[in-house]
């Protein structure tokens, strides 16, 4: 996603990224970034918390107007309502990223991708 943002910027189209993986986005480097310190899957606010989602989106629009140079990150100070345990657990041995069911789905998609590629459809 950051690569797409960079390509748009290089060609004169301003972008703002709303994301939850700060290190990945900043490692790549983008023009404007609203970093929301929430689990992957909820970068725009907690599910069903429309008021919070509005605030986050408003920050993204504001950043489009106000940023004066690249690598401008804003980090609104939200805390995930169920606490911060997810930060300790994500991608750890204690809590694998994929449960067996998800892993099976993921492998099946990977196979399908290879098949489409072999058929010249990708």
């Amino acid at each position, binding site marked *: 996603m950051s690569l*797409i943002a*960079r390509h748009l910027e290089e060609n004169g189209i*301003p972008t703002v990224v709303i994301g939850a993986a700060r290190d990945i986005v900043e490692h790549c480097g983008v023009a404007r970034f609203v970093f929301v310190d929430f*689990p992957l*899957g909820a*970068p*725009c606010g907690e599910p069903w918390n429309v008021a919070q*989602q509005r605030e986050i*989106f408003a920050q993204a629009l504001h950043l489009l107007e106000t940023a004066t140079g690249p690598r401008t990150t804003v980090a609104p100070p939200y805390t995930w309502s169920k606490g911060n345990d997810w930060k300790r657990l994500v991608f750890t041995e204690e809590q694998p990223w994929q449960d067996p069911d998800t892993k099976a789905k993921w492998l099946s998609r990977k196979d399908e991708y290879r098949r489409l590629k072999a058929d010249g459809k990708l």
Partner: protein
Amino acid sequence: MDHVRYIDRTREDYLRQGYEKSYQWAHFEDVPFAPLKKPLRECRIGLLGTSEVAVHFDPEKGEVNPIDEQDFRGVYPIPAATPTEKLYSRTLSFDRNATHLDDVGAFFPIDRLREAVADGRIGSMPMRVYGAYNNYSQRKVMSQEAPKALACAREDGLDAVVLVPV
């Protein structure tokens, strides 16, 4: 509590799974920057997300899938008029232990974009919004997806784009 270092965590995860090399995340020293050329209230703002957004449709009611499945592995358009309740995510790349994908607003802010138009905060939104597949290959993103996203943004007359990686 400080933010999660996903690059380190996924590296360790790869090694635990027995892979010899971990994923090489893209890295650049220089970052391009395009200033906004006119006031936001006059801008047409686009939306692109990697949450693999799809559309519920019922073939028995004569509904067809508005997304071309051939495009689903790259950058693909979704009609912006699609009712939000028909949108859902097919992504597997989210923290299922911490959250869920039942509310599209948490990862694909199409309702927020519509509100911004209604409030006069932005000028307009295009007739289509975009999904992008979570592509593993940076070469493919650079050679195919990024140029397609740019072509779409130009066709739609976008003045700026909100991008949401899941």
